[in-house]
């Protein structure tokens, strides 16, 4: 098992480096614009070239990237071109907000989807119709619209939840919960839709398999068969969907932050990008990729724990 | 009697799964011959490699050693173009009547496609398809219908018709009746023997069932864990075997007579 973990970890880190490298390569095509953006309007090509040299943007790309990477592994992500604010602390301050929404949404999605999907597959009937209906609703309406509708109803009209603003968990847990409640619900809808369908389909497939019938003939209770045996086997493909959902939610969170005025790193990323603030962009890319890699790793570990074949053979 | 197919010291290795897993050798140097118009039965249990021999002859798996000669020509590592030419002489009938026919094509398409690809004109192909259906005892209107409208035995007949289409010299039969009911089994085997008598085609007949092998084979080879342990005439191998594994195989198959079965069981337990 340790070998498996180490192998997955290494693969993840390699991917992270590759992604940041490709991002940097793509960014490098716009270095002229970055330099001119720092200088402001009316800069001549000669001034732009000089600015580039001063910022180190005219060096060979491999050198520039290598330089950035060697600092990054030591925790130094440089400073903004425009505000000189250190990148790492700026990101970490805001990352917590975004993560709290995404992680809570992901966990809630998982719990609800598993419960709904299993119940729909094992019981059928009304529960199944409800689950399919819920899934359909989640698919139909983009979370953008849901979020805005929810703000209008719950915050403006009913005054149940705060419309905007964020309270940190350490300050006041209750207010933190209510400040992220609507954003989380808006974020969850698409995820619940797709994960419930996935689990429902996988469970139906498992419950039709031969071993389920044989376990029944041993006198094993139905609940045990469904939860300990069928669900375990159905979980594999569902975990893949979960990691895809995380990436979706990360994107969705950026939009939600805008609507609810939450101080996450969406706005920060947007502004940096608009100005071509390369250190911040690279820092954000790095954090983004590391998040994805981390979630994929957790998912892979869960998969390895659940599915002995994946663990032993590969 | 001329030799049609000659397999010499054939080795096949399957790669292991995963990035650096070990490969394992499935056939450890297998030799056999099939003469013109004769049936060589290859009998073995699962994992013996019997199916792999057929696949190697058909070019569906690449050997790692040894040679396969057909009519004197070395076809061991035949390229794609050579294989397409060989398709006129060497054909196959697979075990599973349910997955060996494309469920989305009609019988007429399934039988006609190989002919058209080989250059036959559409009208001529259609005539040949009708002829083939007749040869295997299926009604003419079958060519308009889909595989799922037919039973397992009937689908196997279609598979046999497909194999016969280019008038081959050799057909590799890979467990052609194992998935069929008792009554159907007998009829399909009779059909195969009948076709051989009429057209003179040779069979490389692979099966795990000695009784089936006995029905159709002139000569028999017994394969165990990738090695041929015994070869001889059908009479000799199936009544007076020399190798202890062949004897075990013979005694393990239960016979449909209580008294005789008891005797056979006791003989087996004595082994």
């Amino acid at each position, binding site marked *: 098992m340790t070998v498996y973990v180490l192998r997955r970890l290494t693969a993840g880190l390699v991917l992270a480096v590759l992604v940041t490298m490709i991002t940097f390569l793509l960014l490098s095509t716009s270095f002229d614009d970055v330099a001119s953006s720092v200088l402001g309007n009316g800069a001549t090509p000669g001034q732009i070239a000089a600015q580039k040299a001063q910022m180190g943007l005219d060096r060979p790309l491999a050198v520039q990237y290598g330089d950035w990477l060697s600092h990054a592994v030591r925790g130094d992500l440089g400073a903004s071109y425009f505000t000189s604010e250190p990148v790492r602390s700026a990101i970490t301050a805001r990352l917590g907000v975004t993560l709290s929404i995404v992680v809570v949404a992901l966990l809630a999605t998982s719990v609800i989807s598993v419960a709904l999907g299993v119940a729909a597959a094992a019981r059928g009937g009304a529960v199944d119709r409800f689950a399919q209906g819920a899934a359909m609703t989640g698919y139909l309406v983009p979370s953008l619209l849901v979020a805005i509708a929810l703000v209008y109803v719950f915050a403006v009209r009913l005054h149940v939840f705060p419309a905007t603003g964020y309270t940190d968990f350490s300050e006041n847990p209750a207010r933190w919960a209510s400040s992220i409640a609507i954003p989380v619900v808006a974020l969850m809808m698409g995820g619940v839709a797709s994960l419930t369908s996935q689990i429902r389909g996988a469970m139906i497939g498992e419950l039709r398999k031969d071993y389920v019938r044989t376990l029944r003939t041993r*006198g094993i209770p139905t609940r045990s068969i469904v939860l300990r045996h069928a669900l375990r086997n159905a979980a594999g493909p569902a975990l893949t969907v979960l990691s895809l959902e995380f990436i979706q939610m990360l994107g969705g969170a950026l939009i939600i932050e805008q609507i609810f005025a939450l101080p996450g790193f969406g706005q920060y990323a947007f502004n940096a990008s608009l100005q071509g603030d390369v250190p911040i962009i690279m820092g954000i890319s790095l954090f983004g990729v590391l998040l994805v890699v981390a979630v994929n790793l957790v998912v892979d570990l869960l998969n390895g724990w659940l599915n002995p074949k994946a663990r032993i053979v590969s | 009697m001329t030799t049609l197919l000659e397999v010499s010291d054939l080795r096949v290795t399957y790669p292991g799964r995963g990035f650096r897993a070990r490969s394992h050798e499935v056939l450890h140097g297998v030799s056999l011959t099939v003469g013109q118009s004769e049936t060589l039965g290859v009998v073995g249990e699962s994992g013996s490699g019997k199916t792999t021999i057929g696949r190697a002859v058909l070019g569906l798996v690449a050997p790692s050693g040894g040679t396969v000669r057909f009519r004197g020509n070395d076809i061991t590592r035949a390229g794609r173009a050579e294989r397409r030419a060989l398709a006129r002489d060497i054909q196959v009938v697979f075990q599973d009547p349910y997955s060996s026919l494309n469920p989305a094509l009609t019988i007429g398409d399934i039988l006609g496609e190989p002919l058209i690809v080989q250059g036959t004109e559409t009208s001529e192909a259609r005539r040949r398809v009708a002829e083939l259906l007749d040869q295997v005892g299926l009604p003419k209107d079958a060519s308009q219908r889909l595989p799922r409208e037919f039973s397992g035995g009937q689908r196997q007949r279609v598979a046999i018709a497909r194999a016969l289409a280019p008038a081959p010299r050799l057909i590799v039969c890979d467990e052609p009746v194992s998935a069929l009911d008792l009554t159907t089994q007998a009829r399909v085997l009779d059909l195969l023997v009948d076709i051989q008598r009429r057209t003179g085609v040779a069979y490389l007949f692979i099966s795990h069932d*000695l009784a089936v092998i006995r029905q159709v084979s002139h000569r028999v080879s017994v394969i165990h864990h990738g090695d041929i342990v015994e070869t001889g005439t059908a009479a000799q191998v199936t009544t007076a075997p020399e190798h202890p594994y062949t004897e075990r195989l013979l005694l393990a198959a239960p016979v449909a007579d209580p008294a005789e079965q008891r005797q056979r069981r006791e003989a087996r337990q004595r082994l």
Partner: protein
Amino acid sequence: MTTPNADTRRRSTLRRLIADPQAVVSASLLVVIVLLGLLAPVLSDHGADEANLDAVNAGVGDHGYLLGGDKSGRDIFARLLYSIDTSVVSALIGTSIALAIGITSGLVGGYFGRRVRGVAEWLFSLIMTFPGLLLLIVLMPVTKGDYKATMIVFGVLLSPGIYRLVRNLVLGVKNELYVDAARVSGLPDRRILRRHVLTVVRGPVIIATAFLAGSSIAVQSGLAFLGVGSNTVPSFGAMISEGFTNLYEEPLQFLWPSLALGIITASLVLLGNALRDALEGGRPKPARIVTATAYRPPATESAVSGLLTVDDLAIAYPTPTGELKEVVSGVTLSVAAGETLGLVGESGSGKTQTAFAALGVLPSEAVVTRGSIRLDGRELLGLSERELRAVRGTSIAYVPQEPMSNLDPSSTVGAQLVEGVRAATPMSTGEARNRVLALLARVGIPEPERTFRSYPHQISGGMAQRVLIAGAVASRPLLLIADEPTTALDVTVQAEILDLLRDLRREPNMTVLLVTHNFGVVADICDRVAVMRAGTVVETGTTEELFARPQHPYTRTLLDSILDETTLRTDPPATPAGALETEKR
């Protein structure tokens, strides 16, 4: 050479789509909307960016603005129409890039060998590690906010999903024997891919396209909402963003673009679902674990006696038209205590259904229409799952046909057996473990401890069947129902399993109902035989009687079909004159 039936099949899919209101409504809506977008220059008198300071926040109908003006004085209706074009172009770009990359690599990776596939896997894992929307935002300096360039990148990000879909389909098809047969027939790879592989890929890809289009439009709107991209390009996202800031004063400005976006995305989703229903035959139905309790037989005296008595049992299944079709039509048989009854028949005879009915594990669609099954005098039909649980394991047990698929692949062998033992008889885990280890040794497994800790994929088929037999006899059942227990095994292993069964039934004098199609097995192990055909029992008798003097013509046909032990090919391989047309080539 397309024959009529292939065409009728294609037509029937089209007909199903036309008959489905979901498909018709969503498709029509989409067509209308796209047309509106294309006709934008004709339908609106104003440009999307024409600002008129007099018309700021104009009401509906003012200044010739059909839906009013926005906060910059632009015509909302015109902007809506041009936004449709933006969405359509986004969908086209994102979808075509994703499909182009995904389909070609899926076909190539799936069909051509594992090294190519390995490279493709790595590449797409890499693409999937990019953090989606975040990437599209940070690449603004490169795309300059041009939504077309952004959609190209998004298309690339979407391609792994299509690659996976196509690759799995191709791999599934590649392993089908009909592809092998096509290769042996001499068909070139190109034709195999086109004719045999693409037809399987077509349906799911069409369905995916609908959802891809929806994704592209949603993402582009989201980006525009955030402000990525030029604000001269009209898009729903930009309009929603502007409307959002004005939400309390002029809610209508927010409503129009939201409605439009909502209708487009909803239509695409509904169309995708309708396509899936038409092409793939709908969504799978739940598989409830229940017994067929609808029917409960009257408590009358049984016509037959024995440990297990089956009296005029009939089982039916609903057809697609709703009628019930009987698969078992009045089966009567009895098994005396301590004897082994062979239940013989070909496929479709109903023998396995009868066995499942006795165990109470018929599928949930099955309907028992009449009859009774009694075990030791107690009626089994009509019992609920919970009541049956008390009977299973201790009174009645089951050995299945196919060893590998009847073991849970993600539990160890030992864990599954222990669970079964403890379900039938309450005992501690330690006691159960010891009992299971002893059983594994008893059924002839050489290293019980090692097998106990193994997973099913680590043991052979023969060992797996021994494990299943151990699990069945663990709680000393009165009756063992074995469904073709040796059919899936090699003949030498088969003989050993039969020895084992013969040995086991002696100990606690177990009764055995053995379902089989092999008369050799019957001769080896059965005391009495019942022959089934098309849902009824046609003959019963002792084994000796049946083989020596079969009564029913069907029994005689069956016995005649058994391949003779003495038949040999006597005709030598001869070349009939003129039969070999091969010489003419």
